[in-house]
């Protein structure tokens, strides 16, 4: 398995509190992603990074921010958590695709289950 870890794995918090999820990789991959997974919605991209300090929004970025100050760490922050952000959050990493484009195969972390009461 690829060297990718997420923390915390489980968290329960209250509405309005800030939450930060961490994704750490040991593969030196350029690309890092944050997805959320909810029943009936599959995997939806929140934010992604294509290099240190280079990030961009995904399809469901409202209410989330990210930072990547070094290659190995990608942080996802909920400034003021809401109940609609209760979800399972997956971090993923990838290198370039074999076909030359990006991204290549994604390696996922184990997921972080967040409950906002």
């Amino acid at each position, binding site marked *: 398995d690829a060297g990718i870890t997420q923390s915390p794995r489980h968290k329960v918090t209250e509405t309005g509190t800030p939450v930060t999820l961490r994704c750490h990789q040991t593969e030196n991959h350029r*690309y890092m*992603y944050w*997805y959320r997974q909810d029943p*009936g*919605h*599959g*995997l*939806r*991209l929140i934010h*992604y990074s*294509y290099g240190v300090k280079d990030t*961009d929004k*995904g*399809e469901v970025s409202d209410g989330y921010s990210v930072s990547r100050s070094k290659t190995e760490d990608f942080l996802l922050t909920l400034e003021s958590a809401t109940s609609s952000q209760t979800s399972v959050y*997956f971090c*993923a990493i*990838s290198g370039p*695709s*074999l*076909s030359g*484009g*990006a*991204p*290549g*195969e*994604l*390696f*996922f*972390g*184990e*997921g972080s289950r967040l409950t906002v009461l």
Partner: protein
Amino acid sequence: GQQVMQIPQYQHVQEGEDFTTYCNSSTTLSNIQWYKQRPGGHPVFLIQLVKSGEVKKQKRLTFQFGEAKKNSSLHITATQTTDVGTYFCAGPGTDKLIFGTGTRLQVFP
């Protein structure tokens, strides 16, 4: 924006029956990837298809990329209980991967 749709959303089969999930993109894809997620687990990469009309096999799994590179399918022959899970296709955008909605497969022994 780019959309990737999958059908069916759910499929229940008897062990030994075949299973197929279909993936359709709103845009032409340079490649398509397939992932499997076991219940309670994380998605795991299965395969990538690149060429128009490409067909690849992994044991009982057959993957196909359409001639127009806008659709793909995954066919499982003679399902087993170990095939249970959700199967996702994914197409590349700029520096990112867009996932389909997934097909959840349930196999009854």
